[in-house]
């Protein structure tokens, strides 16, 4: 008899499915039911670049402590895919559980001796009740949700409520789904004992919402006042444009006429998409595109134009594994250098690093203000982990007194009153001149926008002095950007320490979990979460305060560290890269292992060890 992992509200369930089998909604039902029980979950899709047939996984981490990063390891594997059986079984922690469809007997060699095998004849149960092939496929999924609910002692009412909500309006579907659910529950109650893993009602979810970052960013674009979106389909950013579309239809139709206060164009490619954004933004609409690394590569010529001609634009980059086509359905933070310095010549661009869907919403809205204030392209750097997975995140809030900040724009009245217009003249020392929208005034305020070098009146000039003045002003503008980018967030250790960590974006929940663990071991690390580029001065100060700072990133080349060293001139030896880049989301286990090893090499041992 193998050992049995016993855990309440703290374990990992992984579903191994076949793409296109309808498992996604059943798995999400499972995760949401646990949330409804007041227990935090973190869910992640691990899926191939495929529509039907290839393996796909859904991982649910149940964590009363609220750890939302990927944990690594699996306590309960729901193995529904014969193709990946071997690897799935191998991934289970010793003492863990294997749940499988036992309709067809499996030879003992297919199992492990150190795990607990739970067989439910799903196909058999399902086929006895349903005859339609598609129904059989879909309800088999619901049956396993029911079986799991019974095995894990879950609240059945929560699941039934969710089913009723999901099929509201298609009420005919409620009864058969509930029936299938109970077929699973009944089978377990009759034939099996509950597992050592249990879900118990709690109150740890609070008022948080469960949503993916792409949807949140699409919603943020609506709140940021975006009216033009041009995009080209690319994984993992497509659902961002689709979310913007959905929320526009919900919130942006004129009540009287039914017409839209927005325009969305699916471009013929990424070049056209960013071109449309540039044209719209130049003409005074808030405009954005969403894409991923390959799209950013294609857009770079236009990004340079936006930088030099000073056109506000927002580019939402949902990063995936690169280079080239790379790993389209895996996550990385590997477009940082590409975005920061996109385009030929001397260029640099502000970036924002949201940590979760909540910040995707806030920063998406904010990015339009920043772009307008700075009159330059701004990148919102999501990644697949945040973008395409549902995260538990703080509820969305909005200050109803907030006005869209359109930056320096001269109106007809300004021009009529004699306010001086000189497009690229820095009257206020922040590096930013006032712009005019086309068609504002019959005789004043027109100018010619160009990507060729120009003087402060927007006239063509190849004069070296004029050129240097202009591009130096753009550096001043980049200094101004530092004040507009959300400040880094600092968490100090309980005790004074010589060591710090820097991190950003989707690394955040795993980093926080790792920090808690370090603190518990008596290892103290000050932490700073970066929220954008250019880096605030506090970041440089933070590094200088410590002998050594570990910079945790999800790419191979320590891209953010390169940006930091390049932009500040900090000694690279002070900043030690900790890099995760296999395409899976970074885990606390990984961070702890790597940083522990680095500290050990520097003779920093856990206090407990010292005490021993």
């Amino acid at each position, binding site marked *: 008899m193998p050992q049995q992992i016993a855990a309440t509200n703290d374990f990992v369930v992984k579903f191994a499915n076949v793409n296109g089998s309808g498992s996604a909604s059943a798995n999400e039902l499972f995760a949401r039911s646990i949330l409804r029980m007041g227990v935090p979950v973190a869910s992640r899709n691990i899926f191939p670049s495929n529509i039907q047939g290839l393996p796909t996984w859904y991982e649910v981490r149940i964590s009363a402590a609220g750890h939302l990063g990927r944990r690594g390891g699996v306590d309960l594997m729901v193995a529904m895919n014969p193709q990946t059986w071997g690897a799935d079984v191998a991934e289970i922690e010793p003492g863990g559980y294997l749940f499988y469809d036992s309709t067809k007997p499996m030879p003992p060699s297919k199992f492990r001796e150190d795990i607990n095998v739970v067989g439910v004849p799903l196909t058999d149960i399902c086929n006895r009740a349903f005859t339609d092939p598609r129904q059989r496929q879909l309800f088999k999924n619901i049956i396993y949700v029911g079986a799991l609910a019974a095995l894990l002692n879950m609240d059945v009412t929560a699941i039934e409520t969710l089913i009723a909500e999901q099929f509201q309006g298609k009420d005919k579907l409620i009864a058969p789904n509930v029936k299938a659910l109970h077929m699973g529950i009944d089978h377990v109650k009759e034939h099996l004992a509950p597992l050592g893993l249990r879900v118990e009602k709690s109150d740890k979810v609070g008022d948080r919402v469960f949503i993916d970052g792409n949807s949140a960013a699409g919603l943020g674009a609506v709140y940021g006042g975006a009216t033009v979106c041009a995009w080209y389909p690319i994984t993992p950013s497509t659902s961002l444009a689709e979310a913007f579309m959905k929320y526009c239809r919900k919130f942006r139709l004129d009540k009287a006429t039914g017409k*839209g206060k927005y325009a969305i164009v699916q471009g013929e490619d990424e070049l056209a998409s960013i071109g449309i954004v540039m044209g*719209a933004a130049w003409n005074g609409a808030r405009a954005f595109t969403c894409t991923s690394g390959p799209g950013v590569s294609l857009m770079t010529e236009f990004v340079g134009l936006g930088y030099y001609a000073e056109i506000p634009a927002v580019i939402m980059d949902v990063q995936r594994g690169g280079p080239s086509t790379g790993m389209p359905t895996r996550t990385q933070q590997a477009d940082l250098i590409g975005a920061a310095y996109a385009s030929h010549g001397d260029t640099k661009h502000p970036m924002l690093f949201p940590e979760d869907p909540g910040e995707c919403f806030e920063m998406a809205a904010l990015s339009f203000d920043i772009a307008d204030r700075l009159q330059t392209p701004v990148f919102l750097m999501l990644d697949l982990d945040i973008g395409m997975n549902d995260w538990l995140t703080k509820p969305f*809030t909005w200050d109803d007194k907030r006005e869209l900040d359109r930056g320096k724009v001269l109106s007809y009245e300004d021009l009529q009153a004699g306010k001086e217009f000189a497009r690229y003249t820095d009257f206020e020392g922040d590096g930013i001149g006032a712009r005019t929208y*086309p068609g504002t005034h019959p*005789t004043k305020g027109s100018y010619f926008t160009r990507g060729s070098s120009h003087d402060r009146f927007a006239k063509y000039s190849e004069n070296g002095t004029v050129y240097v003045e202009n591009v130096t002003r753009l550096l001043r503008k980049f200094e101004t950007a530092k004040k507009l980018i959300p400040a880094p967030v600092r968490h100090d250790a309980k005790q004074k320490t010589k060591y710090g960590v820097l991190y950003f974006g989707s690394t955040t929940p795993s980093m926080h979990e790792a920090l808690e663990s370090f603190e518990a071991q008596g290892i103290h690390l000050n932490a700073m979460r970066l929220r954008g580029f250019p880096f605030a001065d506090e970041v440089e100060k933070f590094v200088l305060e410590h002998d050594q700072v570990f910079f945790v990133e999800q790419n191979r080349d320590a891209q953010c560290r390169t940006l930091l060293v390049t932009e500040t001139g900090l000694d690279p030896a002070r900043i030690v890269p900790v890099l995760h880049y296999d395409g899976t989301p970074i885990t606390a286990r990984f961070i702890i292992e790597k940083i522990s090893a680095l500290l050990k090499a520097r003779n920093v041992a856990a206090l407990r060890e010292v005490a021993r």
Partner: protein
Amino acid sequence: MTYIPKPKLHHPDLPKNKLGFTHRDYEGSVSTLCAGCGHDSISAAIIQACFELDLPPHRIAKMSGIGCSSKTPDYFLGNSHGFNSVHGRMPSVLTGANLANKDLIYLGVSGDGDSASIGFGQFAHSIRRGVNMVYIVENNGVYGLTKGQFSATSDKGSKSKYGALNSDSAIDMVAMALQLGATYVARGFSGDKEQLVPLIKAAINHHGAAFIDCLSPCVAFNNHIGSTKSFDYVREHNESVNKLDMMVDHDPIVADYAPGTMELVTQHDGSVLRLRKLAPHYDPNDRIAAMSYLGERAAQGEIVTGLLYVDPQGEDLHDYCNTIDKPLNELGTADLVPGQAALDKLNEDLR
């Protein structure tokens, strides 16, 4: 090009249009193109068309890509905003600008390199989408700014200034525009301003994608014997199918013409196109027939010019997108931001 700045004083007797503007009010900076360049004649035609249509210059946005043709927006309509964008990408920038403010007139100026090679895709897709614009290709069959390479509109067998023969098939931009669904298609010649000005005027008043292919010989690199885009060649092979007059706000007088020689087309905005037929059987309302006629004549080595196709009830991208009447760039916080109440409800749905 000339180095003498234009005098700022206007002659007091210069004719004024209904808005009180003179021709000079529609001019721009001094051209930096070669003396005798066909493109300057097109700029002059644009100036005249806008003057005659009594357009407020600031309500026009001039868009271009890169190349000799794309420099020209600096040389007309100095009170208009202009945007000299990226090579081959004028159509997307214009599309975006148009989405932001449907009330302005969008004048896209491009060349054959800009639109038939690097920007062929963007040309095609902007036409397909029915962007409400005037899209002029100043077509000289050659890369001028980089000194004389063949362009994609250069005819097979045409000879370069340095004696090379072009072996690639030519792209006929008019045939492409017709196939792609442009609702106004014309071809002009920079050497025939009388024909060109009304074509531009009617295109401006057209609702939808209006495309004008304007042959515009390059005096520096493509005006020699053996070229099929030289002044002499185009003059000798120019077959104009009709002569267009454009009338706004008044009834056309047709009494002078024999029956069957005149056609009237009323556009979406009420402007009337009066077409005097030169090719008696040519019907500019028949897209398929136009494509076939143009193909036949091109095979004979003839260059068909005039108003080649018009769908007077054309639709545009805003119609397809169902955008509100007010320009999107005039919408403010109250129009665009749903506020906390909407979020409260949404949060509830996400739990």
